[in-house]
């Protein structure tokens, strides 16, 4: 595939106004699926978490999951939406082998939640209001694996395997209205919007919201129009954007790509595009037009959803604080400086740090780990920090440091083993013998040996030239393979110098 021509980002914005729109799919963490009693657990052996309904077997029927309705209402309320007194499921008809019935049960003209807005914050603290058009419920499809061929895509594959464990997992799709006025902030706004949705669903406790696992998926719509033009430009819809970083990069890329085409007098094809994390580019998917005919009609197997007004009020009363309020509260609770807190927010690590603090770590320690070593390693590996370790693991690591079992350097080493999947921090300390040596006997032996090997240094120390101890400390640390606590070695060197 020829590499797409890109226009310089700043120049693109001089010429065009980007208009954004997002469709974010949130997988709800209900116990069972949207329309069947199958466990809502994606993973395990293929085609094991299924019922006749998940497979669309002859005669099977859907039954709505009440918990999914409650979760969807809560999410709608958190997005500032109105909740429809009556909403309805519809069938979206299309043939595709990952869709067991060859129609998806979704909501069409009567979604459960509509007309809301979400406040997001950019890195410099400016806030932006994203208008929400609707949030509707639907079921996920199965997962196809294309075997053979080089690309892993359906084209050129020898055959395809399908796993229906995911078929019927409950989803809420959140659709924004067109977002105007983002200008050069567009990529950052995209990232902040998705991060805010993530924070909301995590705070609601309705989704695991792990982008890398597909719990939260974002389709980013981008179009450009010349400044001052009323009519919207032709949009593309970029899919497969599986991290916050990718959302930002994909939007930036599409702006640059489309600008180059338009500036050359070309036209944008309305289509879905596929984001490639590795190359940081998008490639065309299937052409998409407003004329796509899914032959929607009301799902006759299901009754309309008519939530009791009391239920809606009960869920409204139970809503967690909004992300912006929460940020203000956390900043105060944790005692972070403006700079420290902004850094946390911008790194998208608020959730991780909150969880780490909840798991027992001091806020400052939690912050240092996530924005420091974990972020550094994640950057090298080009993944999200949360994909590397869990909050519980970081909290455990910090506890080992607090106990004095690990020094900073050893703790970083343990972290790498944790990331490599070799076990919990405590297990790794035990199995790798990485703990700080606190047995003074072994240290003293090593110190005595080092002191006697450098009699001139020993003399200096005895003469009160304490800084000379450095050479001995270094030798001891080396002899101990780094497992010694440097502070303790220093103390002992000064002590032993008087005695040997």
């Amino acid at each position, binding site marked *: 595939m020829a590499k797409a021509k890109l226009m310089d980002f700043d120049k693109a914005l001089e010429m065009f106004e980007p208009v954004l729109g997002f469709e974010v799919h949130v997988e709800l963490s209900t116990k069972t699926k949207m329309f069947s009693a199958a466990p809502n657990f994606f993973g395990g052996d293929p085609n094991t978490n299924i019922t006749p309904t998940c497979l*669309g077997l002859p005669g099977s029927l859907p039954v709505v999951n009440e918990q999914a309705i409650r979760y969807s209402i809560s999410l709608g309320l958190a997005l500032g939406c109105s909740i429809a007194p009556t909403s309805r499921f519809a069938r979206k008809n299309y043939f595709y082998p990952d869709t067991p019935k060859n129609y998806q049960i979704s909501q069409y003209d009567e979604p459960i939640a509509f007309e809301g807005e979400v406040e997001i914050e950019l890195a410099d603290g400016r806030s932006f209001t994203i208008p929400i058009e609707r949030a509707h419920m639907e079921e996920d499809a199965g997962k196809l694996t294309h075997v053979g061929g080089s690309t892993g895509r359906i084209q050129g594959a020898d055959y395809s395997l399908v796993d229906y464990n995911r078929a019927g997992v409950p989803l809420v799709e959140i659709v924004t209205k067109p977002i105007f006025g983002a200008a050069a902030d567009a990529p950052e706004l995209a990232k902040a919007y998705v991060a805010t949705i993530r924070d909301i669903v995590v705070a609601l406790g309705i989704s695991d919201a792990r982008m890398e696992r597909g719990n939260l998926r974002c389709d980013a719509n981008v179009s450009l129009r010349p400044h001052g033009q009323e009519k919207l430009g032709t949009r593309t819809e970029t899919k497969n954007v599986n991290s916050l970083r990718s959302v930002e990069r994909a939007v930036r890329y599409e702006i640059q790509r489309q600008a180059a085409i338009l500036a050359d007098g070309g036209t944008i094809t309305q289509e879905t595009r596929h984001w490639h994390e590795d190359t940081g580019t998008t490639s065309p998917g299937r052409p998409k037009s407003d004329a796509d005919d899914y032959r929607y009609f009301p799902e006759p*197997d299901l009754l309309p959803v008519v939530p009791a007004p009391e239920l809606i009020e009960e869920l409204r009363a139970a809503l967690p604080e909004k992300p912006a309020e929460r940020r203000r509260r956390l900043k105060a609770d944790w005692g972070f400086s403006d700079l420290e807190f902004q850094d946390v927010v911008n790194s998208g690590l608020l959730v991780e740090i909150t969880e780490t603090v909840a798991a027992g770590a001091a806020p400052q320690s939690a912050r240092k780990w996530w924005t420091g070593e974990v972020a550094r390693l994640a950057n090298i590996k080009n993944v999200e920090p949360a994909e590397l370790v869990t909050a519980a693991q970081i909290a455990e690591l910090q506890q080992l440091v607090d106990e004095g079992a690990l020094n900073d350097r050893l703790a970083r080493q343990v972290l790498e083993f944790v990331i490599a999947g070799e076990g919990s921090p405590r297990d790794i300390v035990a199995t790798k013998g990485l703990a700080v040596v606190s047995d003074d006997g072994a240290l003293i032996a090593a110190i005595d040996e080092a002191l006697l090997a450098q009699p001139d240094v020993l003399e200096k120390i005895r003469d009160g030239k304490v800084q000379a101890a450095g050479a001995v400390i270094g030798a001891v640390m080396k002899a101990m393979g780094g497992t010694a606590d440097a502070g303790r070695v220093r103390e002992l060197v000064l002590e032993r110098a008087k005695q040997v």
Partner: protein
Amino acid sequence: MSDLTRLTAADLAAALASGDTTSVEVTQAHLDRIAAVDGDVHAFLHVNPQVSLDAAKASDARRKAGTPAGALDGVPIAIKDVLVTTDMPSTSGSKILEGWMSPYDATPVTKIREAGLVPLGKTNMDEFAMGSSTEHSAYGPTRNPWDLDRIPGGSGGGSAAAVAAFEAPLALGSDTGGSIRQPAHITGTVGVKPTYGGVSRYGAIALASSLDQIGPVARTVLDTALLHDVIAGHDPHDSTSLKQEWPSMADAVRKANVTGLRIGVMTELDGDGFQPGVLARFHESLELLKAEGAEIVPVSLPSLAYAVAAYYLILPAEASSNLAKFDSVRFGLRVNPVGGGTVEQVMSATREAGFGDEVKRRIILGTYALSAGYYDAYYGSAQRVRTLVQRDFTAAFANVDVLASPTAPTTAWKLGEQLDDPLAMWRGDIATIPANLAGIPGISLPAGLADEDGLPVGIQFLAPAREDARLYNVGGALEALLASKWGGSILDKAPALTGGTR
């Protein structure tokens, strides 16, 4: 005992309860009857004597232990092939499901098993219940026991013929636009379409979800009531099944009394387009009821003029979506195009080979009716007509207790006679379709034989939703009046089947 196959389900239940016979004897008698005559009738697509006899033995053991599972424990029953079963194939009359073994039982099947009934086999039907003659079965037509050259009605011609030919005392059917009631009319048997939601649809291979309803088929009104009582009730697997306690339909038959009952005659279904013999028996039946104390009043439901047209948009629309799952990916027939192909090509080749003409006709029609730009004009208009039909019924039932009409315009026609004229066949559903559009219950029971051809004629009663018991009341009363007039059952007049003619 005399010929066990001539007994009603109620009589068999009594004989089983008293120990005069055993379920094994009863079941064997019916299996023998099937072996003798079904070569001619072809009511069954699948019979497995061993499975039936095992169930019969288990029933006898329960009776012996004094723990019968219910009044009908040990009584045999035939099951329309639209209902999925774990121990017999379920094809819905289609090649695309040939040999399909379901991993689960349909809820009505579970209920009859739990009540101790003995499944005899699966009965023939128009493919996916699309048709009024059972000629659209992929496995060959069923023949009318009254005249083997004629159709048994449809789509449930197999269930009706099995009962009419004394191959089974009871059968399960499904009624989307008359598939239980019209075959009852055609074969001189009784069939009931319950209130929509009265019986679970779980495991009924869907034709049109908003119209489909499972119901009982038998030779007497009491037998249909006994079976209705077994299969009715809420099912958590079917969101559209009603959450309500149902009164005993059998009690309604036993206490039948039409004194003061107001019966509305739908004027739109009385006259033009109906065979004279059909109308004659209909009016005679009304006279009998009137003499018994019922009040007969004419009622007009103007929207019925549009019911057939609306039905033949709503049904294909829903069917086109319901039948999309038959694509060879997960189950059923798979046809690979010569030289292989993409998944779309395999789906296409499978559906081309696996579906019959009537099914393809309706899928294409339904796909068109739902298409962007046509939706409002077709599906949308049809739904508005449906609302009007519902309103007309609500208005009518404000003045009468039940409504009456002939079940269908004509008696049984000759096999092949209407195959080239699908619209004529669709128009034949004019009297049965409105109940499905409105979700209300309906019964068809024999009203006699048409003078011009000597073939059975049915009368239909309709009641408001959830008032199924009214049908059993009026049906039970009329049946008793007719039986005393005829000196027996209408099926006594049917020609004896000797078997082996085909």
